[in-house]
């Protein structure tokens, strides 16, 4: 057990003794921590600390060498990403993923899970149910775009909007998948300050509405302002976990960032 992790009352996500090596490099080295339901938990650490690897392990994109991942009390270790998503965990990516040839609202409509129209046979056996869910999803997508104040982009090509707007669309789309815990990989990287503030407000609002967040972010001001608690990762293991204040004043964290000895 890593000493840094705090015990949790009602964890929506639990990572226990997770390990992953690439060749001789232990990218994730016995990492253990939990994400309390209803929080915005920050995940920080210097470059190469293994944050993205950890995200990939949790969301099923990488297979861990050891340890377990639990979402909502279910062991999802070694499951495919879509199965992990089925248990309520959705993730976004560091670089916005472009959907060529789609408008923004089309790209949004990929979000909802378990659409009846995703079954080929239903398209012909029961087109009525497809229409019904598609109308509902479209209305929901437009409602969320409005909440995000980007409804004017709805019929724009999804590849024609700015990087920051893409991040907003990604967040909005992830919300259509109705996650219980949403993993955001650097939500404001390369986003201008105005949009970053907008993203922050949106994340806070969605959190108040009940979504739990775990986010990687390099922008310290952003993450310190938004997240509590904060988990600090260094060289693949959890260095410490605490409030923004506590983390900021922790010598070990400062050492890790400045490349001092561990």
């Amino acid at each position, binding site marked *: 057990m890593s000493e840094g992790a705090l015990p949790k009352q009602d964890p929506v996500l639990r990572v226990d003794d997770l390990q992953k090596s690439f060749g001789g490099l232990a990218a994730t080295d016995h990492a253990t921590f939990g994400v309390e339901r209803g929080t915005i938990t920050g995940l920080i650490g210097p470059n190469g600390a293994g944050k993205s690897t950890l995200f990939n392990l949790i969301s099923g994109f990488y297979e861990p060498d050891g340890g377990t991942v639990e979402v909502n009390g279910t062991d999802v270790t070694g499951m495919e990403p879509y199965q992990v998503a089925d248990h309520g965990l959705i993730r976004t990516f560091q670089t916005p993923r472009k959907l060529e*040839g*789609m408008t923004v609202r089309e790209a949004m409509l990929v979000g909802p899970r378990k659409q009846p129209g995703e079954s080929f046979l239903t*398209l*012909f056996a029961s*087109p009525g149910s497809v229409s019904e869910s*598609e109308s509902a999803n*479209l209305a929901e997508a437009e409602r969320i775009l409005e909440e995000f104040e980007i409804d004017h982009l709805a019929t724009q090509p999804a590849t*024609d909007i700015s990087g920051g707007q893409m991040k907003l669309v990604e967040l909005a789309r992830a919300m259509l998948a109705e996650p219980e815990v949403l993993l955001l990989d650097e939500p404001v990287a390369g986003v201008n300050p105005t949009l970053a503030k907008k993203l922050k407000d949106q994340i806070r609002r969605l959190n108040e509405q009940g979504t739990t967040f775990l986010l990687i972010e390099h922008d310290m001001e952003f993450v310190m302002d938004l997240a509590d608690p904060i988990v600090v990762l260094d060289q693949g293991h959890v260095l410490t976990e605490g409030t923004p204040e506590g983390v900021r004043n922790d010598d070990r964290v400062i050492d890790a960032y400045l490349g001092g000895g561990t």
Partner: protein
Amino acid sequence: MSLLDDPRATFADLTRPEGWVLGVSVAFALFLLVAMLTGALGPTYFLFLVGLAGMYALLSFGLNAQWGFTGLINFSVAAFFGIGAYGSALMTASSSPIAGGFNPLVGLVVALVVALVLALLIGIPTLRLRTDYLAIASLGLAEVVRLVVLNERWLTNGSAGVRGIPGFFQGWPVLSTFPEAMPGLRLVVIPGSPIILGTSFWQSLLNVLLVLAFAGVTFFVLRRAHQSPWGRVLRTIRSDEDLARALGKNTYSFKMQSFILGSLIMALAGVFYTHLNLYVGPGDLDPITTFYAWVAVILGGSGSNRGALFGGIVIVTIREGTRFLNDVALPIDPAPMRLLLIGVVIVAVMRYRPQGVLPPQRELIWPSAVDGRATPETPDSGVRERKGGGGDE
């Protein structure tokens, strides 16, 4: 906004590429009509060409369902086509070395089942991997199937091919005797060159109706699939498979469905070819068929069903149209001329319109869900075209 309700609005809604393609198609149809009326083009041969165009359209539809929708690179179009052709030929032909003599409908079902099994065999190991692996495996598969057909004489008659194939409608009430029952007609449009419509004409007409039915049903199915959430997941996979996985889509299953659907359509083209040509040989499995299908899809615009149809027709026009060049003295033979022309067309398209002639023009949302909402202004060009081309890697 259907054509019948309000024709003028429908035409006003056309994007520029749509207008062009429509115009060129109408002009081409008129040209063919004139050629037929003047006797330059035999009506029976014309119907054969229409059948061939339908067949290529089916092949393009099949490849479009794989590459255009999902981005699956399948280099064994000819193999699935051949499986369809041989499957139905071996079941129905009188000279079949195995069963033979069955009703063509049985042949159709058997051909589709064999194609399904083959698609599963190649899909199960490769579709979990990156698309490159399917490309490599399918390249090998095409040769394996061709060589098996060429060498396993007990099964396929080897290089002699399969003869004695009945028409598709043999054994059906009315339709099986329809060509003989119809009277021979003699039309005189231009004095001195009468047009004779005999048994073979009626036979060809039946074939054309058959391929129109095949292609029509396929087009309808693909169009609905393309606009559906199902198709949207496929398009997401094409752009970024990891994104689809992160959003909870079982991409392996979706890729498999797309691959099987496309393979079945290709086999359907093969079944039709069997009953059109009434002879099937190992030469029909040559990789050139795969090449033509790819040209058709890329030319028409990957991802567009109408584009695939258009591309298929262009291919047949080039393939068969060059035969008429025999009459004109040219420094090169028509056969290499054909490949040269196709090469020139591809280079021109890639240079000036890399997204294809008729890529998808509108956003694809289940139609009844958008009806009654404010629809966006029709753009001058399609959604896909504004990204500055070069998107189809």
